[in-house]
């Protein structure tokens, strides 16, 4: 990237305007957290359970957040420090942000996100495109979520099959997201990771039930995930 673009993308102003939405989102998360904790209390969910949910969610979220840093590293040389930081902290999914940046710079005749021909003008355009693309998600929520939620609640109130139907959505969604990894014979190590993580989660839940070690069950999901990941290290040598 040329130094002129670097001056723009790594400026103090850029740090400031990128920090504002990130701070807002953090405040929003804390507000929702306190609201939901209060609600859980009202509904009779014990303090202990609330604490468990907070801990297991925090522990789980560490590992899948780490690969996002790699995407940050891919985008930084071209887009500077702060824009990728913002775009990956707010709304950005690792996959989507990479694609959005790549698509835009290609539109300007560059070869891709690693092209050194990035000018300040293209940088500003990329910022526009990535931002306007990303706001689709909250805009849809602002416009439609209330109505959609009301409709869903009404359906659930009818009882009978409607309750069963909404419950089965979890299962259907996990089938679309999970099964492909189990039958991806292009990546045998991936298949073993699925199986090993799956076996361990059942095992840990069972051991916890038998031994009475409660925390084992609370953390069985993040623990089994990490075990599945780590198993890929020796197994990748085997399948190589």
């Amino acid at each position, binding site marked *: 990237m040329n130094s002129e673009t670097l001056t723009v993308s790594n400026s103090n102003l850029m740090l400031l305007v990128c920090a504002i939405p990130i701070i*807002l989102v953090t405040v929003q998360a804390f507000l929702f957290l306190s609201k939901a904790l209060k609600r859980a209390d009202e509904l009779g969910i014990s303090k202990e359970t609330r604490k468990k*949910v907070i801990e297991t969610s925090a522990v789980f979220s560490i590992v899948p*957040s780490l690969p996002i840093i790699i995407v940050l590293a891919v985008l930084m040389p071209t887009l500077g420090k702060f824009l990728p930081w913002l775009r990956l*902290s707010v709304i950005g999914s690792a996959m989507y942000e990479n694609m959005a940046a790549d698509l835009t710079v290609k539109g300007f005749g560059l070869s891709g996100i690693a092209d050194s021909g990035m000018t300040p003008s293209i940088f500003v355009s990329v910022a526009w495109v990535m931002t306007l693309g990303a706001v689709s998600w909250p805009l849809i929520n602002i416009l439609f979520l209330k109505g959609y939620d009301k409709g869903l609640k009404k359906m659930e109130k009818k009882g009978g099959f409607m309750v069963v139907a909404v419950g089965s959505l979890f299962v259907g969604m*996990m089938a679309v997201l999970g099964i492909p990894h189990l039958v991806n014979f*292009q990546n045998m190590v991936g298949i073993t990771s699925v199986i090993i993580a799956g076996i361990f989660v059942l095992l840990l839940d069972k051991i916890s039930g038998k031994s009475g070690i409660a925390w084992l069950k609370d953390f069985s999901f993040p623990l089994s*995930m990490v075990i599945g990941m780590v198993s890929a290290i020796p197994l990748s040598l085997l399948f190589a």
Partner: protein
Amino acid sequence: MKNKEKQNLSTYQSQIHRMGRLSSILVVIALILVPVALTLTSGVEIDISTTLRALVGLLSLIVVISIVEFISYAPVLGAGATYLGFITGNIMNLKLPAAINAIKVAEVNPTSNEAEAVSTIAVAVSSIVTVAILLVGMIGISFILPVLQSPILKPAFNNLMPALMGALATPLFLKNLKTVSLPAVLVAILVFVMGFTAFSRVQSLLIPFFLAITIGWRYFLYRGEQKKIANN
């Protein structure tokens, strides 16, 4: 008591929507301020037609994906978690698993009010952790990156999603073996036919299609169960 509970529910729900909408609007404005500030202060001339062309290209994809994600994720996450999740992103690899795990740990019924509160807690905590890690990551990237990309750890991170899905889906599938059977077989067949990479590319778009199949299949099973109950 029942009346009070009803009132509680509607108050909470409308508060969540008010909070969700207001904070979403604020974040959208703050986000748009970024390119606005850049344009005003950098003094560069923007190639508007090329920018628009790139934007339209991206939007044609994003709008479809975001609508499909909205339809599929909102009923599973609940309103509070959807507002937050759609603002912080990374739903498939972070927010959804955190919510499903929280429901399991709290031992609540997935469609209950309790589940909605619990998944909002999970998604909020998960969002805060990711924001914190990215802050540390941005500042200390030169120290962290070599570790994350070390050849030893590479296979582990390459197989994060398989391990995550294995740990998350296995207990859920075992509890709902009949329900998952048909959609699982159909997904497997489609992955075989299309190949994993091609399937991954359209995965988001396929979710509502498979959700419809799952509900249809569940209805078929439900009717069977009802008949059995009636016969007994």
